[in-house]
């Protein structure tokens, strides 16, 4: 006899015109582990955030122990016994492990004094849970800044546990743990489960899902499309459920027939999260980088642009190169459209003119020929169909799509031979996306080599001649022609068997 702990019923969340969650439903009972699965952008994290009170839903109901509840804040959800562990860590680096774990719910004694002794003992008890899988330097007094990522993740897990939750959400909590630590975590989850805790497990790793979870709730395009008992379900069946329309085949109609000479060859590249990538890219070709977020795609692009130190071999048009600063890559004809427009691509308070010309000023003489510079910027604005008040208006006055055109435009003014793009259409509206794709296709037809990372599978399928799927910093699959399908893309991303047997 299981007691129902929580039911999410048809939850809806909209961000502006974008529907992040259209019908998010799930049930979780105490003593049960439910896996939440779905492709990129399927609404998993939104659903998780509504349950923890971090995001307020626009519709639908949360029912806790038979009563409709509404969490105005994460604190309210915490009081109801719901705690979450996230991958993007929420620890304060300058505080110790104990201070982080008990932050905002410190054991309080007489006169509002924090009982430091009690706090330390409780922390030591929590740390004992992972004893043997962590270094001996992980103590209650260790500052979090001194910890490696895996131990920080463990502190994060213990922080959630310190709240004595009835429901724990583990959102990609295993991504930075090693196999011993994952095994220990799974033992602990089994123990908590037996003690009556309910667990929601969000993960991309199929193997872990089948090891840990009892049931899987599958989300697709913001909708709960099914719940499966994992004892009687195969991996393929689950993947098929994650992919719209089952295993329908689609691929680019006109493959790059005008493929030119080899522009870029990379062998054994390692940098940041990239752990040994080989690839080849030709003029007049768009190659996509696929896979789940954070599998090394961004670091690969940064390394090629000279913005991240790397080891391995990079050849540009046959010549070995080793860039240590973006300016060298730029001189070699490389351009990079970064993923975070505001923080990496633009100078928000400066004018559109200055933003467009920032990489090109050196071409206008010692005493800048501003008239000519303005003419060039104007021509680029027209070519990109930039909707703006004037070239002197600050970039911050533009919409997301138009701002992204400025980021592209500033590179096109340099006429690059190799264009690197890091998830360029994130937060861009549909109309501007279409124009953006058109620009890329024109560039490809003009013989530019393009390497594009996108978190949007549609984009990779619709735009690329080939897609390299990255997982854990390595290329795990190369999809082209008949194998460039959504099914192959998703299964290669999550490492399901299907993609690798073909």
């Amino acid at each position, binding site marked *: 006899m299981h007691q129902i702990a929580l039911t999410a019923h048809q939850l809806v969340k909209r961000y502006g015109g974008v529907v992040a969650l259209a019908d998010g439903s799930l049930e979780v009972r105490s003593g049960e582990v439910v896996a939440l699965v779905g492709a990129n952008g399927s609404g998993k994290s939104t659903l998780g955030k509504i349950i923890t009170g971090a995001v307020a839903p626009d519709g639908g109901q949360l029912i806790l122990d038979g009563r409709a509840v509404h969490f105005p804040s994460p604190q309210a959800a915490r009081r109801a016994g719901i705690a979450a562990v996230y991958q993007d860590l929420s620890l304060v680096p300058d505080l110790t492990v104990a201070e982080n774990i008990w932050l905002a719910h410190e054991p309080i004694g007489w006169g509002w004094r924090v009982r430091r002794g009690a706090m330390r003992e409780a922390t030591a008890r929590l740390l004992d849970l992972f004893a043997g899988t962590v270094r001996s330097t992980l103590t209650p007094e260790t500052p979090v800044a001194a910890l490696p990522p895996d131990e920080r993740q463990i502190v994060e897990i213990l922080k959630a546990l310190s709240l004595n939750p009835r429901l724990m959400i583990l959102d990609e909590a295993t991504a930075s743990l090693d196999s011993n630590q994952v095994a220990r975590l799974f033992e602990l989850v089994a123990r908590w489960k037996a003690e009556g805790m309910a667990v929601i497990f969000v993960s991309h790793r199929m193997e872990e899902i089948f090891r840990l979870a009892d049931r899987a709730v599958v989300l697709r395009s913001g909708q709960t499309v099914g719940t499966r008992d994992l004892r009687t379900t195969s991996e393929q069946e689950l993947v098929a459920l994650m992919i719209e329309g089952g295993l329908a085949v689609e691929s680019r109609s006109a493959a790059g027939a005008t493929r030119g000479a080899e522009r870029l060859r990379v062998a054994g590249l390692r940098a940041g999260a990239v752990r040994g990538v080989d690839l080849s890219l030709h003029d007049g070709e768009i190659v996509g980088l696929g896979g789940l977020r954070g599998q090394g795609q961004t670091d690969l692009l940064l390394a090629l*642009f000279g*913005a991240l130190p790397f080891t391995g071999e990079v050849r540009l048009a046959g010549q070995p190169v080793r860039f240590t*600063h*973006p*300016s060298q890559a*730029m001189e070699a004809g490389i351009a*990079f459209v*970064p993923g975070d427009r505001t*923080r*990496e*691509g*633009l*100078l*928000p*308070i*400066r*004018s559109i003119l*200055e933003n467009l*010309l*920032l*990489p090109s*000023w*050196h071409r*206008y003489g*010692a*005493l*800048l020929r*501003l008239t000519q510079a303005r003419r060039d910027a104007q021509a680029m604005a027209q070519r990109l169909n930039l909707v703006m*008040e*004037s070239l*002197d*208006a600050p970039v911050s006055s533009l919409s997301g799509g138009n701002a992204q055109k400025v980021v592209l435009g*500033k590179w096109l003014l340099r006429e690059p031979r190799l264009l690197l793009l890091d998830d360029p259409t994130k937060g861009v509206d549909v109309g501007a996306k279409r124009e953006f794709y058109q620009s890329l296709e024109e560039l490809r037809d003009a013989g530019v080599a393009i390497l594009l990372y996108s978190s949007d599978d549609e984009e990779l399928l619709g735009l690329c001649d080939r897609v390299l799927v990255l997982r854990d910093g390595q290329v795990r699959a190369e999809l082209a022609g008949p194998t460039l399908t959504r099914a192959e893309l998703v299964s290669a991303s999550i490492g399901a068997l299907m993609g690798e047997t073909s």
Partner: protein
Amino acid sequence: MKRPKLNPVVIALLLAVLLFALGGILRPGFASHAQAMNILRLAALLGVIAAGQTLVIISGGEGIDLSVGAVITLSATLTYRLVNGDNGMVLPALGLTLLVGLLIGVINGLGITLLRIPPLVMTLGMTGVVQGLVLVVTQGQMQGAVAPIMARLVARPLALGIPGVVLIWVVLGVAMWLVLQRTAYGKRLFAIGVNRTTARLSGVRVPRVVVATYGLSGMLAALGGFVLLGYTQIVFLNLGAPYTLPSIAAVVIGGTLLSGGQGGYAGTMAGALVLTLLTSLLTALQMPESARQIVYGGTLLVLLSVYGRQRALRQ
């Protein structure tokens, strides 16, 4: 170009006119030609000194140069000693002090970029070092003399009754405008002031620009010391220190964002005028020193909070 209704440069200029008129009403004689020229001359001194500070503050990254006062003293002391009353030594002495100022600024820049020392700490530490250097140069005795040509250039009317220092200021103003608006360096300076990541990913070598900027600031402070010496005719250990904070205040009153990335030298020029007028007015009113300090500080606070509010409204 659609701008917020109140441009800080315009505000500062209006304020300067207002203070001048107020002085004329309260103290007949305040608005006389001679007094106006004197105020202009003092404003020019501050303006020259604040030029480098403008560049440093635009460069962002909590950019500030607290070493200007010490560099002024060092430059004045060096010049005083080298020139020693000889007109022929003026140019070589100027060249050498500019070089020394540049070197000090470059060291500031290297400390900030290579050692990642916060600008406030780096330039404050440099202040101590430079003060020590002053003692090395003087050996405890202020020996030397100002060359006649320097006094004539700075203190006396050069042409049309306008002091030479004001003409120097105008030339510097034009040069600063050209540097900020019409050179690649200027464009990159604004870029690193707004966002260093964007700048780097657009090919700007951020550390080079930072080092160049602090170098320029040191050099312009040395020029300030040279000009100031022509005005004061003597040197003393505390010659430059009282100019450090006003140089920052003039920049900020002129509308340059303390966070960097926006502003210009025209604003700083107006700011220098406002500060000089305010000091002169308070002096003319024969307020006690304590009241003068309080009014001066209070006015700064009011001005800065007005600008801060405007910025908040814009966002």
